[in-house]
């Protein structure tokens, strides 16, 4: 028995190293005073972060990405909310099939989605590529995640809650606003944060569909051609990892709080 547990422990540690070592390299080289990414380390510097502050094109890319991520999170969550509510409360023919279909982009390879969207937007609809085309594509990618999260929120919701509000004199909309919405609000916040995070660092689809102004991941990819800017990318990467961790932590916090508020047990959430 003991030997068995020991073996598992070694496996777990190796797994974690494999998973996180590359990420730990990011801050190490972001603060390393050398252009070449290699050991031994050359000394501490915040120079690469200073460089981030002064690169105009990067600022544009970040602004673009934030705008896209925000619009995506709002749109995907709104769509997810409608789908999850319909899935939880309404009854219509072919419900299971339709819900399954909506969830499909979750497992489609991004590259396929990107190429087919490009064909549709350029060849079929003849649209100019812009931030809006990226937003549309990101909404497509993020909506299944939003639905998954919000489905959880609605599953925990007693369907008679909204009926009780109706029964007490509210109409359909005010019943939804006064009862359902506050009860699934933690799910909504959690969904927005996750959609925001996904959109912010999504590369493949953005690379294909971006207009004249690149998003941040696309800009980073462009930088890779210049070995001298590698440490800058490390610095940027460090900030992004920190930001992602913070956002996901907040999302998880709201999900758990929602469960607690509804007086339910944690049934294994998204994280």
């Amino acid at each position: 028995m003991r030997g068995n547990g020991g073996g598992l422990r070694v496996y777990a540690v190796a797994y974690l190293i494999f998973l996180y070592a590359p990420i730990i390299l990011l801050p190490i080289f972001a603060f390393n005073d050398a252009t070449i990414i290699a050991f031994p380390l050359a000394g501490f510097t915040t120079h690469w972060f200073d460089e981030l502050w002064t690169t105009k094109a990067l600022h544009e890319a970040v602004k673009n990405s934030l705008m896209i991520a925000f619009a995506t999170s709002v749109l995907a969550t709104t769509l997810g909310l409608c789908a999850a509510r319909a899935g939880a409360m309404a009854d219509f023919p072919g419900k299971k099939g339709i819900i399954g279909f909506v969830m499909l982009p979750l497992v489609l390879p991004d590259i396929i989605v990107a190429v087919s969207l490009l064909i549709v937007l350029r060849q079929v609809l003849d649209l100019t590529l812009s931030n809006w085309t990226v937003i549309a594509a990101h909404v497509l990618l993020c909506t299944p995640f939003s639905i998954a999260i919000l489905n959880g929120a609605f599953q925990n919701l007693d369907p008679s809650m909204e009926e009780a509000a109706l029964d007490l004199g509210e109409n359909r909309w005010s019943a939804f606003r006064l009862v359902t919405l506050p009860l699934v609000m933690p799910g909504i916040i959690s969904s927005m944060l996750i959609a925001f995070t996904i959109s912010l660092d999504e590369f493949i689809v953005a690379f294909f569909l971006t207009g004249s102004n690149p998003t941040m991941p696309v800009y980073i990819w462009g930088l890779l051609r210049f070995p001298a800017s590698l440490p800058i990318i490390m610095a940027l990467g460090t900030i992004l990892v920190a930001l992602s961790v913070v956002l996901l932590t907040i999302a998880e916090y709201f999900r758990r709080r929602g469960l607690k508020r509804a007086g339910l047990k944690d049934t294994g959430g998204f994280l």
Partner: protein
Amino acid sequence: MTPKPLIQLSGVDKYYGDYHALRGIDLTINEGEFFSLLGPSGCGKTTLLRTIAGFEGVSGGTLMIDGKNMAGVSPNLRPTNMVFQSYAIFPHLSVAENVAFGLRKDPRSKEEKAKAVAEALEMVGLGGYGNRAAHALSGGQRQRVALARALILKPKVLLLDEPLSALDKKMRELMQVELIRLQRQVGITFILVTHDQEEALVMSDRIAVMFEGEIGQLDDPETLYRRPNSKRVAEFIGKMNFLDGTATAEGNRIAVDVAGLGKGDIAADQAPGGMPLGKVTVGIRPETLAIVFEGETTDRRICDAVVDEVVYYGDMTYYDVKVPGVDKPLTISMKNMIGRPVLDVGALTRVAWDERSLVVLAA
């Protein structure tokens, strides 16, 4: 005082797809009545209640409440309020906010509303609980909040869907009494859904027993218990022994020959489902049979029996006895009294029965 009809259903049908959940329900419920819908699981009690509340539309027939046709009237515009089986207390609001929820469109001042809320909470025995968080309440307290929240709107009808089924036995019995008291106090029509026959008998003025989307019998509790109109009602309400028999009409009386027990001459109202003749089923309640103990005498009819099974309940003992000529053992309930022994399995004894307690049902 003649009862004033408040809810009238005529020929109400409800389909869920192909499934016929309510089959031509005709029903009148009166003002101020405590009415129960009783029946086995899946018979359509909740469906009928939700139809009255307006959460389900009818597929056919008409539903009138207080003289108005309810077709197309949404739940928020009906003079009904509901206590849900899950209570549906809003967990993000306090107890007082829950109770005040239905008063949002009420033109009264804030102070008057607060007073009404306090009174409603007082009425259900939750005075001073207003500031509590709703999600921290016990089952019984939730139910009281749900009651206060519905009653504060002074509906014409309060609908209750198995309101006691989530409570433990003690709490359930307490709430049964509370509900009866509350209903008398406010004078509102209560419609209670339950699958617990005892609960229905204890609480109701009248009971509709439902089977598979139909009303099998509608009567006051005593009639329902003493004169069930069919075997399925008799089986569902209380315990009943069923024996084979033959019936012949003799004027407005019936002569029945009960297999194993003998002949009896009974009044026509002992066949509440109409006068079935020929082969019939005869029902006898366990408490209308009696063990005749050693040294006791009785002027009732007597037959010999052997004790087959004894179940001791403290205040009562249930015996299953075998009577020659009766194919199944008869169940008899006896009150335990000083000087009255509890018989052993296999003991020879005598059983007294009375023709006035026989119920003749279609075979």
